[in-house]
């Protein structure tokens, strides 16, 4: 029995199947919302699933001049890291499967692994677009990661714990942190957009300049895994932000409406802006994002 639970947690819930399905569902909601914002119909509900199935069925072309081992390994690693991160997060409003002191830091690092894998995958494929995409991806990591972490630390500091579970519990019993720490919420949300390379932070995969950035050479399975990884990260990211800033997640219903509300805001933000150039992104994060998060943190510490 002791051995079965972790396996269930890994394969079915909250890791594995549940996350993959919810990732696809959230991708659909995101696409549909953007389409409606743009006055279009948008895809039907099975479209993300159909995309994934199609990509998985396609031949994977491994270009010459790349390290084939890395080329295949990186997407798997990225997805695995994203799925692992879910184990420490109160998915669907239920208690996380695993929890220990300091799991917040681990989760945040696990969430960055996907981006790192993406960057490495781009650098690994000997394509110009991939290389530029990889450089931009990694540049962007360094710009949003610090503010995003600072923004996540805010709630942790007021809770006095680095354990996601406890922060969640604290958030439930206190004033919503979005009101107490509005700047932190904003930075966290926008940081999540940067993490997921959503517009306007999609310079690393700006299609009109560098086709699809780091993933240009990926087709078939590798591409499908990266996409799934991003979807999973979207769900986890939304859960984290909702748990920390939107009064915690106490039940599946709580989880559903809070993350979907966040997704609505996220979709709106995606549609509203022109793509930022990579230098503008870096400037924005370091000049404004990091500064704001620091101020917030200082205020919290002093108080």
């Amino acid at each position, binding site marked *: 029995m002791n051995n079965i639970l972790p396996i269930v947690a890994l394969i079915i819930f909250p890791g594995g199947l549940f996350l993959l399905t919810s990732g696809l569902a959230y991708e659909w909601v995101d696409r549909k919302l953007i389409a409606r914002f743009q006055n279009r119909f948008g895809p039907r509900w099975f479209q993300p699933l159909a995309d994934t199935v199609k990509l998985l069925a396609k031949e994977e072309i491994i270009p010459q001049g790349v390290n084939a081992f890395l080329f295949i390994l990186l997407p798997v690693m990225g997805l695995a890291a994203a799925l692992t991160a879910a184990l420490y997060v109160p998915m669907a409003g239920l208690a996380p499967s695993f929890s220990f002191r300091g799991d917040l830091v681990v989760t945040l690092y696990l969430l960055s692994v996907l981006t790192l894998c993406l960057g490495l995958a781009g650098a690994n494929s000997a394509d110009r677009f991939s290389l530029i995409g990889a450089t931009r991806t990694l540049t962007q990591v360094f710009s949003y990661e610090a503010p995003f972490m600072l923004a996540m630390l805010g709630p942790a500091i007021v809770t006095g714990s680095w354990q996601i579970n406890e922060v969640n519990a604290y958030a439930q019993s206190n004033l919503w942190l979005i009101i107490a720490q509005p700047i932190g919420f904003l930075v966290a949300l926008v940081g999540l957009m940067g993490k997921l390379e959503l517009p306007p932070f999609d310079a690393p995969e700006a299609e*009109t300049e560098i086709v699809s950035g780091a993933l240009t050479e990926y087709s078939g399975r590798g591409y499908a895994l990266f996409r799934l990884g991003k979807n999973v990260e979207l769900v986890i990211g939304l859960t984290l932000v909702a748990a920390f800033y939107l009064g915690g997640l106490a039940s599946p219903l709580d989880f559903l409406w809070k993350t979907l509300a966040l997704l609505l805001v996220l979709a709106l933000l995606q549609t509203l802006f022109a*793509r930022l150039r990579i230098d503008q992104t870096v400037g924005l994060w370091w000049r404004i994002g990091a500064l704001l998060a620091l101020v917030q943190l200082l205020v919290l510490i002093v108080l």
Partner: protein
Amino acid sequence: MDKQEKFIVPIGPQHPALKEPGHFEFTVDGEVVTSATARLGYVHRGIEKAVENRNWTQAMYMLERICGICSHVHATAYCLGVEKLAGVEAPPRAQAIRVLIAELERIHSHMLWWGVAAHEGGFDILFMYTWRDRETVMELLEMISGNRVHYSANLIGGVKFDIDQKQADAIRKGIDYLEERTRHYLEIITTDETFLGRTRNIGVMTSDQAKSLGAVGPTARASDVHRDVRIDHPYAGYDRFPVQIVTEKEGDLEARFIVRLKELFESYRLIREVLDNLPDSELTVKVPRKIPAGQVISRVEAPRGELFYYIESNGSDQPERIKVRTPTLPNWGTVLSTAVGLKLADMPMLLVGIDPCFSCNDRLVYVKDQNQSLTEKTWSWDDLRNHGIERYK
């Protein structure tokens, strides 16, 4: 990446930034472009030769198909030229209808352009909304002419169809809606911070540069060069319905947006004026099948700039020579000479900034790099192709 530390980013012949085939190579240093070259000609169809084997009427339809966006101006330039050769003049009502359609076409072309340009800057929302509103003018054109793209309004010696009261009302209604929308978009492109970050002070071309590079159309007018054939040499109905020139001083991408949008207000005004004052006359005059020998130059203002036609007849029912110089061609130089020193991310917007039409210009450009010499290290198309063949053998 070769030993010279040159990193070349190819854009095209097939690339998401380009809606038509063209090939550009940008040598970048980090994100900064240090040189730019281009090769076009992927859609060269030999139209100038082909029209020599067609009769005057058939040639018109051939020339109309040079471009899918500005088909009407090609036919207008051609018809005006041939009419001049034949010594006839289309009746005033026909000329007014030509102006009307030319202006409607300008609206649809400019809206198409600024949608595409916004998309290149990742501002998809503006792209979607402008293209949605552009449907209005497309539907108007379809209603008047019977086709969304190739209106085929012209005949040698007049136009094919009349505008009746019902159509005029529909056009007025459509124009009112579009004018309001254009005002709204003008506000957005001049106030939205993220978008201005991508257009303001990007790709600046001074007035002197524009003059010496021979820029035409809105590209030139955004650099404060007063060039507009509709004003300099009024053709068709433009003497009866004069246009006011629209210029901007900055010469950057933002100015090119503003010039094109402000030009639309001029178009709306003109369309209303034409509709209110449609002269009464026949729609066509008789033109002989054989056009008297002679040569004529016909210039019209296409949405993209000056369109130049040289037409020569040898007295038979087929043209001797028709030379077409489309506005995109002289504008290429302006893009590639302003590209150096900008960020790679600005390239797609700069490229579309002149509203290039590859099938119009179907020609090839080679531009020198910063130190004014054709570098050996820049890969030519041949090198690239051979490299591709070698690599994937």
